[in-house]
Structures are given as structure tokens and as C-alpha cells.
């Protein structure tokens, strides 16, 4: 068979096992499932105000509407559940629906359950709610000195004051990263089925992890974890972090099912999604940076105000700490400090969103590097080179506790400059500008962390107040071989298009000596039957490291057992099918003391991910890739329109397990990065009304809007993951906003830019 011809399946561009069903329209997404008979349909009544007191809520007319089973109100929710636990204590309890006070437009206040969705939507219109509007808080920076600020921490590594005092150039710039959202094309969906006799909830949801949020949901429901059975569908229509927050609707629909005694289906619509699902934080960073005259970066002082929306919803304030070990970016700078403040505003709560803290960090850091280069009269690429961590220094400990596993940053920079024709492009841009055309070149060098330390978010509390320590990032996997030799893998990595089934099959195929097509990989995870950990799920680009790590360990266990059986039977060439048949049908023939059956479960935990230490240092991620982007843009002087003339991205994500899928991740990450740079922003008016509530107002890039990137790869294996792979799904989302902003700044000779760089906004800068 094919397996014999190949050296290894891993490392090859194996075409996806997922595709055929999806191409035929036979995918199994949440709204395609009908897992329980008699399911009724929910619609959610939501707040039209950013901040208001609920004076009266009367559902009686809705209760009498045709087809209505019943109504769950915020009052019911507060009576039947507990507030969601979060990373920091907040004065404002967060429930699955509001009672008493609403705190953002779109916040759930009641749920109607009816025979079909049309009837449910009819009935929510009949619920009478009287609101007394209150003053909303919408500007996090303006509110930072008020009680809206719920966390204020200062971190200090090295001697920033001393370094700034001796610097030849000190910059102090303010950068604002707006709220944006990766908006998967499939919205949230939940089917909830309360079992009154067992006192348990079974819920199907297009949840993506982290499974810490399973515990958060169970805690809110007052259930032990085993009483909340959470099942994900085989297919999920994209997530990019966003679908982590579906957990609050698992609770809401679970309560509706419990109260009304029927299984409940809720499929979010796009308006609801844009108003009330999740999105990035909005971050304002004031960054003070010290440089020597020859371009050495010697100090960084961050002052960050993080707008997390109306509630600190778990895992927030994680956006602020995900990059903590990488505050120094790709550079050797030793003196780094940060003041991190978390502010509540009357907007939709934030959460996971592709890049998760990276785009915000690197906009400030990489824009600062470019501004410094210009002020010092140096080439940005040379300034970067002067500061990059050297290939001889890996594993490299960053001042804030990060452990960079491996890399050759300078070689990546060289590759990118060569691929881009950097020198020529810079020269062309200068001559184009001399002729009146606004052409610019932008560079960004970013370290892309993957496999998050589950303990980093505890940095939000000072050492000594952190409660029980948290650490690590582990994944589980079970592999079974049937009596006929069929191989089944259970993997709780909740993919949403990344091709986990294909890559897991490649890994198992190599270890068990079969072809990937012979391996069934089940990713429709189930917290009652799958091996999982609190870290399970699909975020922080963790699959290729810990997901694959667990698969490889489980497969190795089975391979060992198979080898022992063959050896015991005296014939090392017995087929896998014979070994399986023997193990199942004739356990008497197995080696003495061997456990019967052919199933193995293994867990893999990434190394080095300790809890934060008492000096606030943390290895916030296990693996670190490196990305260098070069963007060339032209700005239309008349309209402000930014056109991307060329985009080069060079990655080192360790060993590439499937180059085809890796390329897809880089392209997709770039699409989101370009979206954030040039198009996307969640906009509220001065009363907190959402202005971007449809896809006509929230602009996602289309095929005509995106560049065709030129992509290069290096492969410096990670010593910390079993196959040497690192995550690569988020790097270009982190780098592109900075690279494009640098290119536009270069083109128009201005630094007062704000994302997204839409034509009207750039035009406004040009006409200032």
C-alpha cells in the first residue's frame, strides 16, 4: 500500500480528509444536527440600550402567543444560576442574561421558546420591557480613573528608568487598536437538553474551547462537571477564537430547557452575532521606548488601557497577558516595564479573537521601531537586525519570563528582504514619492507564541493573591483499534477548518504503518467520553504542538503494544489486522500480564509552562515561531484608499507537518490581519448604540480587497514539542496590522494613523 512507499506522511502536503463531505454539502454543522426529538426553538430578547435599569419586564403577552412553550427571563436566570467566575474579581456579577440592569446593546434579557423560530421571534416582540436609561461608559481611557477600572498592575523587569535616562532617543507614542471581530461565517448555535431525573444538562454547541470554559459554565449552572455533557459537532463554520464565548449561551439555553421542560435549539443570527457574541479588546497603548544613536533598543515602558466591554468574561483579561512573555518582541532589550489596566465599558464583552493580544502588542512595538528608525536616519531593517535575538541564544529567556524555544531570526529577515526585493522596493518608493505618488514600504518582525500557559492569566492578580497555582497546557487523545483492525482516534481539539483530522491521521499513519485514509479521526468532542483537559480546544495555535503531541504519544503506546504482541506470537510480520483480531478474540494468547484490548489514551503537556513566579515572570507560551513581513502599499492622494502592491511573509514555525495546510493558515491569518489593518472595526455611537450591526456596515475583506501574498518558510524545529512543530495560525494576524501601518506611514510621511486604515480615515490624515 501507499504507506510503504512514503518515507513519512508527516511533512507532506496530504490533501484533506475533511473535504469531500464539505464539498458535497454533507458537512455536519450545529444547525444540521437534530440530536433530540421534540426540540423547540429559542429567540432571545436583547437590550436596546447600552446602560439602563430594567423597571418592568412583562412576558404575559408573549406567553399567550401562538406556539409559545414559555419564557425565561433574566430574573429566572439570576434565580436559577450563579454568576460566571472570571480571572479577576469584578464588582459587576455576570449572568447569562441581565436582571435589573443591562450593560450593553444586545445583552440578553429574556428567551422565548416556541414551536419554531418564526413563532419565537414573533413572540419576543410581545414582551413588554420598560427601561430607564443610565449614562453609559464608552471611553475606557476617560474612565480609567473611575471604578470602571477593575485591575491595575505594574510589571518591572530590568531598570527601565536608568535605560531611558541614558538613551539617545526616547519616543513616547500612543497607539489605539480598535475593537474588531473575526466574524466566522457560521454564527453560534446551541441545542440544550435538560434531564430532570438525572439533574444534568447535555448540550451540543459549536464551542471551540478552551475547556476551562466548560468548568465556568458548569459552575454557573451549579453542576459538577460530569453533569454538564458538552458535545461539539464534527464541523464548525470557523471560529478564530470567537466561538469560545458560546459557553454563556450553553448556560442560557440550558436554563431555558430546565425551566420549560423541553429540549431547546438556538441558532444565533448575524445581527445578534455582531452585537453580542465576542470580539477583540480595544486597546490604547502608550509606549515609551529608548534607543541608542546607532539603533539599539534599550528600554520599553508600556502603559496599557484595555477595554474588555461590559463584563470581565472568562478567560479575560487574558488578552492582556497572552503576550506577557513576549513584551520585548523579537528583540534583546532587557529593560521592560508595563502598567496594565483593565476597564469596563458599556459594550459587548471581549474574548478570544485571532492573534489574541498579538496584533495590539505589535502595532505599538513595531510602529515604534519604524518611527525610531526614521528619527535616527536608519533603515528599519537594519534597526531590526541590530536588535534581533541571536540564533546562538536559544532557548532564550525574555526579561518578562518568556522562553523562546528556537529560531534563526536574522535568517528569516534576510529571506524576507530578499523575497521582497526590499532594497529596490525602498528605492522605488522614494523615487515614486519624488514624483508625487504615495508609495511606502513597511516591515514587521514578530514572535508568534503558541500553546498558551493556562497560568498566565493569574498575573492579573499580584503574587500572593493568586489563589491556587495554575500552569501548563495539556491535551489528551485516545486511539482504539477494532477487532477488524480499524483505527479510531478521539481528539478534543475542536477544529473549525484547520484540518486536524488530516494531520492527526498523518501522524498515526506513520506510527502504526498504515495510510492516513485508514485512520478515522473523531473530532466531534464529548466531555463525557473523550479524554480532555481544561486546556483542550482550539486556540493559541496549540494543535501542532500539544494536539499532535497527544496523538503521537497515544499512537506510540499502541505501537509498542502491537510490537510486543507480534514478538510474543513469534512473528514480527503479522498484519495489524491479525494482531487486532488476536487481541480482541484470543486474549489468552497475549503476553502474560498484558492488559487485553487495543486502546491507548495519552496526555501530552508542553514543558516549561510554570505558574507565574513571585517576580511576575511567566513563560506565557511553550513554542515561539517567527514572522517577518514586508508590505508595499500605495495611497491614493485623492481618496485615501490604500492599495497593497506587494505582500511578503516569511515564517519559521518549526517543522511543517503538512505544508499545504500551513500555507492555508498563513494566508487565512493574513486575511484577518489585513482586515484589521484596513477594513474592520466595531463602531458604537456616543450613546453606545452599535453602528456595525450588519455585514453592510461591518466590512469584512472580499476577494477583491486582499493581496496575493508571497510566502516563504524556514523550519527550525522546536525542542519542546514532540514533532518539532510550532503554531502558525496567528502570526500574520499579529504582523499585518503593524506592517501595513508602517507601509502607509512611510508612504504618506505621517505617524498619526489609526486603524483601520480605511480610505476616509487616511484621507482625513492627509488633509489635516
Amino acid at each position, binding site marked *: 500500500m501507499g504507506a510503504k512507499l512514503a518515507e513519512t506522511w508527516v511533512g507532506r502536503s496530504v490533501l484533506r480528509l475533511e473535504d469531500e463531505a464539505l464539498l458535497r454539502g454533507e458537512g455536519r*454543522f450545529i444547525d444540521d444536527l437534530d440530536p433530540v426529538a421534540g426540540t423547540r426553538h429559542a429567540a432571545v430578547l436583547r437590550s436596546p440600550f447600552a446602560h439602563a435599569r430594567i423597571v418592568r419586564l412583562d412576558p404575559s403577552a408573549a406567553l399567550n402567543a401562538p406556539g409559545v412553550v414559555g419564557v425565561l427571563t433574566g430574573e429566572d436566570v439570576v434565580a436559577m444560576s450563579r454568576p460566571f467566575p472570571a480571572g479577576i474579581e469584578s464588582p459587576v456579577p455576570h449572568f447569562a442574561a441581565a436582571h435589573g440592569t443591562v450593560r450593553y446593546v444586545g445583552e440578553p434579557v429574556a428567551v422565548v421558546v416556541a414551536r419554531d423560530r418564526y413563532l419565537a421571534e414573533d413572540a419576543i416582540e410581545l414582551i413588554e420591557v420598560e427601561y430607564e436609561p443610565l449614562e453609559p461608559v464608552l471611553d475606557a481611557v476617560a474612565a480609567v480613573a473611575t471604578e470602571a477600572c477593575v485591575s491595575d498592575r505594574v510589571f518591572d523587569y530590568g531598570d527601565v528608568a536608568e535605560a531611558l535616562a541614558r538613551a539617545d532617543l526616547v519616543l513616547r507614542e500612543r497607539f489605539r487598536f480598535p475593537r474588531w471581530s473575526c466574524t466566522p461565517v457560521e454564527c453560534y448555535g446551541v441545542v440544550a437538553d435538560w434531564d430532570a431525573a438525572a439533574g444534568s444538562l447535555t448540550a451540543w454547541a459549536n464551542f471551540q474551547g478552551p475547556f476551562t470554559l466548560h468548568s465556568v459554565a458548569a459552575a454557573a449552572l451549579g453542576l459538577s462537571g460530569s453533569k454538564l455533557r458538552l458535545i461539539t459537532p464534527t*464541523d464548525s463554520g470557523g471560529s478564530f477564537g470567537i466561538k469560545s464565548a458560546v459557553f454563556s449561551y450553553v448556560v442560557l439555553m440550558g436554563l431555558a430547557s430546565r425551566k420549560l421542560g423541553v429540549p431547546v435549539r438556538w441558532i444565533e443570527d*448575524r445581527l445578534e452575532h455582531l452585537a453580542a457574541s465576542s470580539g477583540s479588546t480595544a486597546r490604547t497603548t502608550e509606549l515609551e521606548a529608548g534607543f541608542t544613536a546607532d539603533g539599539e533598543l534599550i528600554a520599553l515602558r508600556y502603559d496599557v488601557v484595555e477595554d474588555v466591554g461590559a463584563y470581565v468574561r472568562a478567560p479575560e483579561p487574558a488578552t492582556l497577558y497572552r503576550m506577557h512573555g513576549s513584551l520585548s518582541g523579537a528583540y534583546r532589550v532587557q529593560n521592560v516595564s508595563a502598567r496594565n489596566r483593565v476597564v469596563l465599558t458599556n459594550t459587548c464583552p471581549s474574548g478570544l479573537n485571532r492573534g489574541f493580544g498579538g496584533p495590539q502588542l505589535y502595532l505599538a512595538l513595531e510602529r515604534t521601531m519604524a518611527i525610531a528608525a526614521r528619527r535616527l536616519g536608519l533603515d528599519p531593517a537594519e534597526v531590526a537586525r541590530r536588535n534581533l535575538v541571536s540564533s546562538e541564544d536559544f532557548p532564550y529567556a525574555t526579561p518578562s519570563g518568556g522562553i523562546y524555544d528556537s529560531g534563526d531570526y536574522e535568517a528569516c529577515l534576510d529571506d524576507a528582504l530578499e523575497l521582497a526585493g526590499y532594497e529596490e522596493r525602498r528605492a522605488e518608493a522614494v523615487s515614486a514619492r519624488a514624483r508625487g505618488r504615495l508609495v511606502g514600504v513597511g516591515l514587521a518582525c514578530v514572535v508568534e507564541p503558541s500553546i498558551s500557559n493556562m497560568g498566565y492569566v493569574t498575573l492579573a492578580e499580584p503574587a500572593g493573591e493568586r489563589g491556587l497555582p495554575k500552569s501548563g497546557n495539556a491535551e489528551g487523545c485516545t486511539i482504539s483499534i477494532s477487532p477488524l483492525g480499524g483505527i479510531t482516534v478521539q481528539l478534543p481539539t475542536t477544529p473549525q477548518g484547520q484540518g486536524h483530522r488530516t494531520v492527526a491521521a498523518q501522524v498515526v499513519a506513520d506510527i502504526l504503518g498504515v495510510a492516513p485514509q485508514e485512520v478515522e479521526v473523531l473530532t466531534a468532542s464529548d466531555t463525557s467520553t473523550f479524554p480532555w483537559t481544561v486546556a483542550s480546544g482550539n486556540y493559541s495555535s496549540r494543535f501542532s504542538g500539544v494536539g499532535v503531541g497527544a496523538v503521537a504519544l497515544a499512537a506510540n503506546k499502541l505501537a509498542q503494544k502491537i510490537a510486543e504482541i507480534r514478538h510474543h506470537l513469534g512473528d514480527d510480520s503479522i498484519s495489524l489486522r491479525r494482531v487486532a483480531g488476536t487481541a480482541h478474540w484470543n486474549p489468552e494468547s497475549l503476553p502474560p500480564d498484558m492488559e487485553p484490548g487495543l486502546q491507548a489514551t495519552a496526555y501530552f503537556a508542553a514543558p516549561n509552562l510554570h505558574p507565574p513566579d513571585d517576580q511576575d515572570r511567566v513563560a506565557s507560551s511553550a513554542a515561539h515561531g517567527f514572522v517577518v513581513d514586508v508590505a508595499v502599499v500605495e495611497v491614493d492622494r485623492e481618496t485615501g484608499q490604500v492599495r497593497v502592491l506587494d505582500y511578503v511573509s516569511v515564517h519559521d514555525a518549526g517543522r511543517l507537518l503538512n505544508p499545504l495546510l500551513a500555507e*492555508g493558515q498563513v*494566508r487565512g491569518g493574513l486575511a484577518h490581519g489585513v482586515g484589521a489593518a484596513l477594513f474592520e472595526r466595531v463602531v458604537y455611537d456616543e450613546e453606545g448604540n452599535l453602528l456595525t450591526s450588519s455585514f453592510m456596515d461591518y466590512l469584512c475583506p472580499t*476577494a477583491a480587497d486582499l493581496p496575493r501574498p508571497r510566502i516563504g518558510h524556514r523550519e527550525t524545529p522546536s525542542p519542546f514539542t514532540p514533532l518539532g512543530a510550532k503554531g502558525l495560525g496567528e502570526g500574520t494576524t499579529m504582523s499585518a496590522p503593524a506592517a501595513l501601518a508602517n507601509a502607509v506611514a512611510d508612504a504618506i510621511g505621517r505617524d498619526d494613523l489609526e486603524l483601520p486604515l480605511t480610505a476616509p480615515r487616511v484621507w482625513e490624515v492627509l488633509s489635516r
Partner: protein
Amino acid sequence: MIPIEVRVNGRRYAETVEPRLLLSDFLRSRLALTGTHVGCEHGVCGACTVRLDGVAVRSCLLLAVQVDGAEVITVEGLARDGKLTRLQQAFHQHHALQCGFCTPGILIAAEDLLSREARPSREDIVDMLSGQLCRCTGYTSIVNAIAEVAEA
């Protein structure tokens, strides 16, 4: 309730529907053709695109009663005799889908383009695709897949 008769993927259906039932909901819930996906319900994302008497339309912007007497093709109707079409195969080869949620609408819209223009240019393809949202791929691989079929 209004009786309608419609051919979907070559099969005749006689159903009685409420006047307000969307075509997308009719296909998904009544006919159990769940390959047609709903992404925005306001006609922007294109995930729900089907062919109505040969023309690509947004099934979320049409009512089921409007297709009485018409012929509808959904993604389930593309592969013939269990064999993927050239376009479907090209999507597989070019890694032109990740989560696959937008894919049915894009396949239908691309088939529509290819049926109207024998050899669409890359620009034509991008132009057509700009009516379909994909958040996973960055579109390049989709354009490549369609271009391969267009050039063949």
C-alpha cells in the same frame, strides 16, 4: 398556507408553506438539504447561494412561495452519480476550503459564472467572488481552483 411545487436537484417536491417561509429555511428544514448554509440572512455573505432556473440567487432573500414552478440546484445537486465535479475536485486539490461553511455558496456561484462565461479571466473570478465571504482562506486558493477549471 400556500401549496408550491418545485424541482430541487432534479427531484420534484409538492409542499404547503407559510407565505413568510424563507427559501433557505425551506431547503434546510423542510427538504433536509442542509448543505445550503445561512451566514447572515441579509444577502451579503453568499453562503446560502443556490441556482434558481440557472441563475445564482441568495436563498435567504427569497421566499419559498417565489420558487413555485421553478428549478433549484443546491450544492447537493452538483456531484453526479456520486462523483465530485471538476470544480469540487479543484477545490480539494487547491485547499480552497477550510471550515467549509461558505463553500457550498461559492461552488454554486462559481458554477453559475462558468456556465455563463466559457473562459472567465482571473479578474472576472475575483469580481464574482467578491459577492461571497470567506473568513478562512484569504480567497487566493479559491480563485486558483476556479481559474484551473476555467482554463481547462
